[in-house]
């Protein structure tokens, strides 16, 4: 089955991002396909490469990055959610004349159309957080 995930909760203050990763790992292990993971609302902080996790805790951005690279999963940060929260790639940083970019490699900034497309092309959509 082809899944797409919508994640809303913050990686720091909600279990949504961690639960979604477990779900994503289990679905790949179960032979399913992940079409797209769309980070919306507070979940966009998962794409912040400047996140520093406490030493005894997993760093969710790096875990997602590693998972997506290994399984070739498309990860999209909602661009309007991300801009509001100060998460930008090089292109947006230049467009808004910011003094730096902080998006983690492996993520992509794009619009809600990417989520609508994922809803249309997946067999099941699953929401985490909210």
């Amino acid at each position: 089955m082809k899944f797409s995930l919508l994640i809303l909760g913050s990686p720091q203050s909600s279990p949504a991002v961690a639960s979604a990763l477990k779900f994503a790992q289990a679905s790949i292990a179960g032979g399913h396909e992940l079409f797209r993971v769309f980070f919306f609302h507070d979940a966009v902080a998962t794409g912040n490469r400047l996140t520093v996790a406490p030493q005894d805790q997993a760093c969710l951005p790096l875990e997602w990055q590693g998972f997506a690279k290994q399984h070739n999963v498309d990860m999209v940060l909602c661009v309007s959610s991300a801009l509001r929260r100060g998460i930008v790639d090089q292109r947006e940083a230049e467009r808004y004349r910011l003094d730096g970019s902080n998006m983690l490699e492996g993520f992509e900034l794009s619009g809600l159309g990417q989520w609508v497309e994922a809803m249309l092309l997946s067999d099941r959509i699953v929401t985490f957080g909210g």
Partner: protein
Amino acid sequence: MSSLLMICRKAPYGTSYAREAIDIALAASAFDLKVAMLFTDDGVYQLLRHQDTTASGSKNVESLLSSLPLYDVGPLLVNQQSLDSRHLSQKDLSMPVQLCQPSEISQLCANYDRVLTI
């Protein structure tokens, strides 16, 4: 044409979930999905009339919702029980809605290709 039912459960202010759900509804409609919205639990507060956000500076959810029919989003459905338990009725709402009973919601979900709850 694919169809989407958005289930809106969040109060209009305090978090930006209500606003973001409206954004998804509008984006989906722009991609030619047939979009309906069901307001339930605290989500019914989004539909209250005379919302005034001048003092708080938040974006007014009532005016965002009022634009939905212009983008062909509808019907707007409301869980009657959520209204009742908050001592609200249809006359407290800012726009025309269809009332539904909790027992009808599972059938309603089955009528749409996709269901998204925020």
